Structures are given as structure tokens and as C-alpha cells.
């Protein structure tokens, strides 16, 4: 079990459980295998395209067409108005729910990134029970995919007004709810989201931390660097793209989440997805259906922006991991 082997294992685990594939580049550029013959007959030849047509048709029908429809409806005006719903979606009350959603995603991403990074670093440095690391990665794989209704329930049972942990704190003189904490408010949701954000960050960061070669550290120590200096000048700069990329991934993750917040607040949250539901269910009465489309369209735009940044940063992070 050399370190590379282990790294590969974790990378593949990550690959399977999440969306991160470090080997993407080599796949994307297209290997040499199979490019003979077919390459010359042209990329549009029917015999070449026919077998992959169902896939593209399926994605076209159920992902691309709906997205296009979403945007065309979003740019139409709301009944009784002349401005596009896209513009109206950024008016006062809706803007405040965007601010709420963005802020929530940002805080949970930054906190999740910091704690997740420390967690990953700690897990990678502890060697004594060898199984700890496997335990941590295995568990993270499960927890990062949790979320949804069960997670909300688990936190209602522990940090709700009558929750176990709330009670324990209360008996020790800390009155959470007296201090204004509510599980369905801003900070409550942030804490709940950390449950899947921290493990996700761990899964992103472990391969990157394993990619720090011992020789770099030894070289730094040999020329007289302290461990602190090593981290300041070598370790952290190399990890920075991974850290930033991971943070963006966490942000996108939180931003598109819906079920957990919905169940925590019994449907009354100010989050953008919950607002979308509100507009669409009332659309026949209020005539504001297009507003729902516009909010969803804004979500797509924001996610497009964030995920592009993530992919760029990941490409940069891989610079050190090749060879």
C-alpha cells in the first residue's frame, strides 16, 4: 500500500461518490484508442452518431429544452407589467431572499471549507490507528451524500427547541433558544448544512493534501524553514486552488439544496427555492408564475458562474499533481 496507491483509492472513491474526477483532462482530450478510421470518416457521419443519439436526445429533451423554456418564460413580463420577470425577480422582496440564500451558502461554504480542511489535515496526519483514516473517508462518503429530509429530522431532534443537545446545553447553563437561536433560522440552517459540507470538503482536500510530496517538506526544512514557514510559503500556496475550488463547490452545493431547509422550516423559509415553489403554486391566482421561472433562471446563472470558477480552479490545482 504505497502512498500513490492509497491516493488513487481515495481519488476513485471521491470520483464515485461525488463529481470530482481528477482524471478528467486525459479523458476529455480523447485517447488515441479508436480514433483511427472513424476520425477520417467525419464526425457527423450517421453510422458514428447513431448509437450515441439516444443519449443526446434524452439530455436534450429533459435538460436542455426545459432550461431553454425556463429562460424564455423568465424573460417575459409578469401579468400586468411591462418589465421582464428577470428584472422584477431582483426587486425588493425577492432580492432579499437572494441575499439570504447567497449569504447562507457563503457562510456555510466558508465554515465548511475551514473545518473540513482542518478535519482532512488532522485525518491525514494521524497514523496510529490505521483504520481511522478509512473510517473517516468512508463516513464522509456517506455524510456528504446525506441531506434531504432525514438530515433535517436528525437536527430537529438534536438542536430543535426540544432537542437532545439543546437540553444538554440548557442543563449546563447555556440557553440556546433564550439567546435567539432557532434551528430554522439563518444560523440554524448553516449548522445543519455543515453536516454535509464538512465531509464534502474532506473528500476534496484529502487527495490534494496527499499530493503534497514529503520531499518538498524535507527540502524546506533542510534549508532552514520552520514548519510554520513551510506551510506559509509552500504548503498553503500549493493547496490554495484546491481550497478555493472546494469552497466554490460547497457554495454551489448549499445554494441548490432545498429539502433540508424546507423540512426544517416546515416550508416557511426565505430561501430562493422555497420562494420559487410559492410563486409557481400560486401562479394561477397571482399571475406571477413567470416570476418563479425568473428566480429559477437566476439560480441557474449563479450556479453556472460558480461551477465554471470551480472547474477552472480544479484545473489549476491539478498542475502539481501530474507527473
Amino acid at each position, binding site marked *: 500500500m504505497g502512498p500513490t496507491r492509497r491516493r488513487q483509492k481515495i481519488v476513485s472513491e471521491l*470520483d464515485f461518490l461525488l463529481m470530482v474526477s481528477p482524471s478528467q483532462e486525459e479523458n476529455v482530450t480523447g485517447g488515441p484508442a479508436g480514433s483511427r478510421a*472513424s476520425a477520417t470518416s467525419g464526425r457527423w457521419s450517421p453510422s458514428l452518431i447513431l448509437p450515441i443519439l439516444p*443519449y443526446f436526445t434524452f*439530455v436534450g429533451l429533459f435538460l436542455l429544452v426545459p432550461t431553454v423554456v*425556463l429562460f424564455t418564460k423568465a424573460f417575459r413580463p409578469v401579468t400586468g407589467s411591462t418589465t421582464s420577470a428577470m428584472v422584477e425577480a431582483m426587486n425588493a422582496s425577492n432580492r432579499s431572499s437572494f441575499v439570504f440564500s447567497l449569504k447562507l451558502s457563503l457562510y456555510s461554504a466558508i465554515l465548511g471549507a475551514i473545518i473540513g480542511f482542518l478535519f482532512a489535515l488532522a485525518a491525514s496526519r494521524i497514523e496510529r490507528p490505521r483504520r481511522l483514516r478509512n473510517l473517516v473517508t468512508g463516513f464522509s462518503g456517506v455524510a456528504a451524500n446525506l441531506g434531504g429530509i432525514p438530515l433535517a429530522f436528525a437536527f430537529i*431532534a438534536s438542536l430543535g427547541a426540544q432537542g437532545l443537545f439543546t*437540553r444538554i446545553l440548557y442543563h449546563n447553563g447555556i440557553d440556546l433558544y433564550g439567546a435567539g437561536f432557532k434551528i430554522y433560522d439563518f444560523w440554524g440552517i448553516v449548522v445543519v448544512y455543515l*453536516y454535509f459540507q464538512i465531509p464534502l470538503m474532506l473528500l476534496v482536500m484529502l487527495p490534494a493534501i496527499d499530493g503534497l510530496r514529503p520531499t518538498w517538506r524535507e527540502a524546506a526544512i533542510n534549508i532552514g524553514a520552520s514548519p510554520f514557514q513551510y506551510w506559509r510559503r509552500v504548503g498553503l500556496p500549493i493547496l490554495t486552488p484546491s481550497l478555493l475550488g472546494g469552497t466554490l463547490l460547497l457554495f454551489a452545493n448549499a445554494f441548490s439544496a432545498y429539502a433540508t431547509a424546507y423540512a426544517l422550516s416546515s416550508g416557511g423559509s426565505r430561501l430562493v427555492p422555497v420562494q420559487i415553489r410559492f410563486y409557481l403554486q400560486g401562479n394561477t391566482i397571482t399571475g406571477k408564475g413567470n416570476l418563479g421561472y425568473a428566480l429559477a433562471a437566476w439560480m441557474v446563472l449563479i450556479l453556472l458562474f460558480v461551477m465554471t470558477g470551480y472547474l477552472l480552479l480544479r484545473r489549476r490545482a491539478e498542475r502539481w499533481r501530474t507527473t
Partner: protein
Amino acid sequence: MNKRRTTWEWPVILVVGAFFIVPMLAMTRFAMQRVPMSLLGRDTLFSRWTIRGLMNTISDDKFQPAFLLSVRLGIVTVLVVLALLLPTVLWLHLRAVQWKMAAEVVSLLAYVVPPIALVVGVSGAYRDTVPWIVSTNFGLVPLYAILCLPFAYRTLDAGFAALDLHTLVNASRSLGASWQQTFRKVLIPNLRTAILTTSFLAFAVVMGEFAISSLLLKRTLPTYMVEAQGREPQGAMGVALLLLVLTTVLFMVLGRIQKKSPTSSSQEIRITP
């Protein structure tokens, strides 16, 4: 040589670990102990544990249809995803290499369109023209397949990449096997790990999916749980716990399978040319 002193590492592991374990314990207690929170103390800690709440909910006549619907949707989605992707990824690796990039980018689009936007777009596009997508239970399948696409594509793509595909296919075909036989007897056994991984993940995603099914007013397991929460909180909590345990077991089995064959494909069949 690696004799580092561990100072801050254990506290971090323990605190974060506690953060992960406490909610699970609290959930278990809530689901199975009939002692009001205010009376919970050292002497009542072990009294009145029961699974009656859970049993009540499970025998509720709305639970079983919801559970079965989720299971069926999970199975059908897995089949649709595999039927859609296996031939496609095979062809992309075998011949249509120029299309690989496009196929992958397209699969990643699902990350940019969140479930809530997807369901809004789909109902906007098809509510009037193809109403079964919105109105029937199994109309959820295409949407769920889209949700699973990014990880399913990547998993299968990696599975095929680990194979010496040309050698395998050529060997099989030159021995007189039809495409169908090649697929069934050569490719699928070699792709076992990738196929199982995809299936388990897709199944788990469908079992827990809430946003889409709730917006389309379908009675799947998660929407049932939310609805039952008000009526029978303890039972709903028990069902949620059950779902969590099921997911965890699924992932543990998956970890076993992956461990058993780290690169099963490339090791088992080394037919060197």
C-alpha cells in the same frame, strides 16, 4: 522517521466526530424512546424504549405505497440510466471519441440546473404537450435519470477507461460472438464495479429525493415523511432513521465491493497483445 507529535489533530477529530454522531443519537432517541425531553435524566435514560412509533407508521396504509413507489422509481431509474449510458459510453470509447468531450460537458449540465429549476423547466415545457411527465408517478423517472447523469456518466466512463476495450471487443467479435453476447458475457462482467456503483448511488439518490417529487405532488417516501411529521412525529423520525440506515448499509456494501476489486477490470483480463 515520521515521528510527529500529534497535538491539535485529536481534538479536531473528536469535536468534529461528536458533531456527526450527536444528531444520529438524538434521532435514535427521539424515534424510539417515549420519555418527554423535560423528564430525560440519568435515571430515565434507559426506560421506555420502544419501536412502537415506528411500527405504527410502517403499518400506516399510506406508508407502504409511498415506500414501494420510491423503491420502484429507484429500480426503474437505475435501469433507465444504465440502458441509456452503457451503450453510449461504450460507443464513445470505441469509435465516437470525438464526441466524448461533448457528452461529458452535457452530463455535467445537471450540476448547473438545480433540481428545483429542472422541475420548474420541465413542467413549463411539457405540462400542456406531454402531460404524463408531470401527472404520472413514473413521469419522475426521466427527471431522476437527469439528476443521476453526472456521477453515472463519470463512473461508467472511468470503468470503460480502465478496460482494454479494443482488445476485448475484437477478441470477442473475432471468436464469433455477436454484439449482444459481447455485451452480456464480456463487457458487463468486466464493468461490474462501475455498474454496481452507479446503481447504488442512483438508487440512494432516488430514495431520498424530495424537491422534485414534492413540487409535482407525488407521494414518495420523503414527501410522506414530511407529511407524517406533523401527524406522528415519532414514527416519521423512525422512518427517516430507517432510510438513513438503509443508505449507510448501501454505501458500506459499495465500499466493500470497491475495495475487493480496486481495479478489477484491468487486473483480471490482461490479454497482452
